[in-house]
Each structure stands twice: as C-alpha cells, then as structure tokens.
C-alpha cells in the first residue's frame, strides 16, 4: 500500500496545518483551546519530519517524531496542571486575565 506523492505536497500540508495551529493559538482566548492549537502545531512539525524521513528512507524522521511525542506528553501534562491551577486561582480560563506581567 504505497503511494507516490511529491515530497513538496506533504511538506505543504504540514505547513498549512502549522499555520492553522498558529491561527488557533492567536484567536482563542481560552487556554485549553490554545493548548490544543499547540498540539496541532507539534503534529504538523512531526508530519514534516516523518515525510522527510520517508523521502530518504531513513529512520531518523520517525525517531524525531518519537521525541516530539515524548515532549508533547510532558508539555501537555504540565500545561494541563497549570491550567487547573490558573482556573483555581482566577476562576477563569481567559488568557487576557493573566496580563499581570506587562512591562
């Protein structure tokens, strides 16, 4: 079950997903949605890695994906724990409520 596609198309797909992730991070005020968008961006970069690995027939792309996965797991667990704390302290998930650290 092999397909023959140009590597550019795959990379463009990854780029498009990444751009959507960025849009998600910026337009949402809810922290949970922002975290979801970050997950989208991570996945998009993982896709680019895997595509590059399969283009050259090397395992490194997938290895990198594994690392991204591990990183995403760690990031999500910490991020969600932070979200819980923020909700407890501020009774809100609005990122604009957390502007205390302005210059």
């Amino acid at each position, binding site marked *: *079950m*092999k*397909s*023959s*596609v*140009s*590597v*550019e198309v*795959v*990379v*463009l*797909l990854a*780029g*498009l997903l990444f751009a*959507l*992730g*960025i*849009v998600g991070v*910026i*337009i*949402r*005020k*809810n922290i*949970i*949605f922002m*975290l*979801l*968008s970050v*997950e*989208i961006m991570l*996945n998009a970069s*993982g*896709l680019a890695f*895997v*595509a590059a*690995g*399969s283009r050259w*027939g090397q*395992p490194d*792309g*997938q*290895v990198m*994906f*594994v*690392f991204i*996965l*591990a*990183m995403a*797991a*760690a*990031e*999500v*667990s*910490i991020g*969600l*724990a*932070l*979200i*819980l*704390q923020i909700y407890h302290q501020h009774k809100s998930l609005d990122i604009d409520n957390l502007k205390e650290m302005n210059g």
Partner: protein
Amino acid sequence: MEIAFYIAGTVAIVATLMVITRHNPVHALLYLNVSLLAHALLFYLLGASFAALLEIIIYAGAIMVLFIFVVMLLNLGKETAEQERKWLKAKVWVGPSLLAGILFAEFLVLVLSSEQSTYSPATVSPREVAVSLFREYLIGVELAAMLLMAAVVGAAHIGRHKRLVLHRFLKEENEREEEKHEEMVL
C-alpha cells in the same frame, strides 16, 4: 494510492479547521482526535507504520484522554461555549488569519520554488527505528526519559490543590474589601 493520501490530507485540514473554530471544548477535542487519526493514516501512507501506531496510541489515546479529564474536572459546559461564541468575533480572527495566510504563502513560494519530484516513499520498519533509537539516539532517549520524569513530578507538584496564595499587597487589599463588605452588611 495517491487518492488515499489526498483524502487523508483533506480530512486533516478540515478537522483542524473545526478544532480551532469550535465553541464547545469537547467538540474541539473530538475534531482534534479525527485530525490525529488522519495524521496516523498519512504516516502510514508515507511508510512510517511505527509512527502511525504511536500517533494513535499515545496522541489520540493517552494525550486526548488527559484533555478530556481536564475538561471534565473544570466542568466546562454550556457557559463556556456561550463565552467562546462571544469571544470569537470576525474582528478577532481576521487579522491573525491574514498573518498566518501570508506566512503560509511565503512558505508555499519557498517550497514550490525548488524542483518538484515525486517519489515512492520507502517503508521504514519499526525495527530500523528501534535500532536507530537505541544506538545513535541513545542519549536522546535518556534525555527524553528525564524530561518525562520531570514532567510527572512537575505535574504532580503544580496540580496539587493549594489554597489561594496572594501577594501580601493584594492580601491587604482583599482584607480591606472584605471589611468594607462587612460594614455594608452591617
């Protein structure tokens, strides 16, 4: 089998679009799950069956479950959806979408300016990945292990339910407000 690739790609894009536009967190999570499954298919079509499996098991399985737990814990329901609807106005999303569009356009120009080449993706078996992972990238694996360990400890620490901690100035302010409140009650 190019058609499968394009279908999976389209599904991924549409699902992702839905994720970033949903008002209800649970709906967004479900769409994200769809997107992740589409990713898994893409991986499989690119000859990376191991990555596809990991995507389903860990991402779509474990990580999404975490999100759902949190959504349940915070009891995000109809009110949140209402709030999201209020927040998500055209004037909020047009600018960032435009910027992202420009970014993507630039990316497009850069990618398409190079020579196009079609190829048949080589299958990279889990065996090869494992060998590479535990030989060349051994240090990386150990570092990842440490990172996960730190994440576990950190999450356990941060997630502890502490009482409200305020800065001392804020505390004084709070006390004053409480006093006022009491006076008013009296």
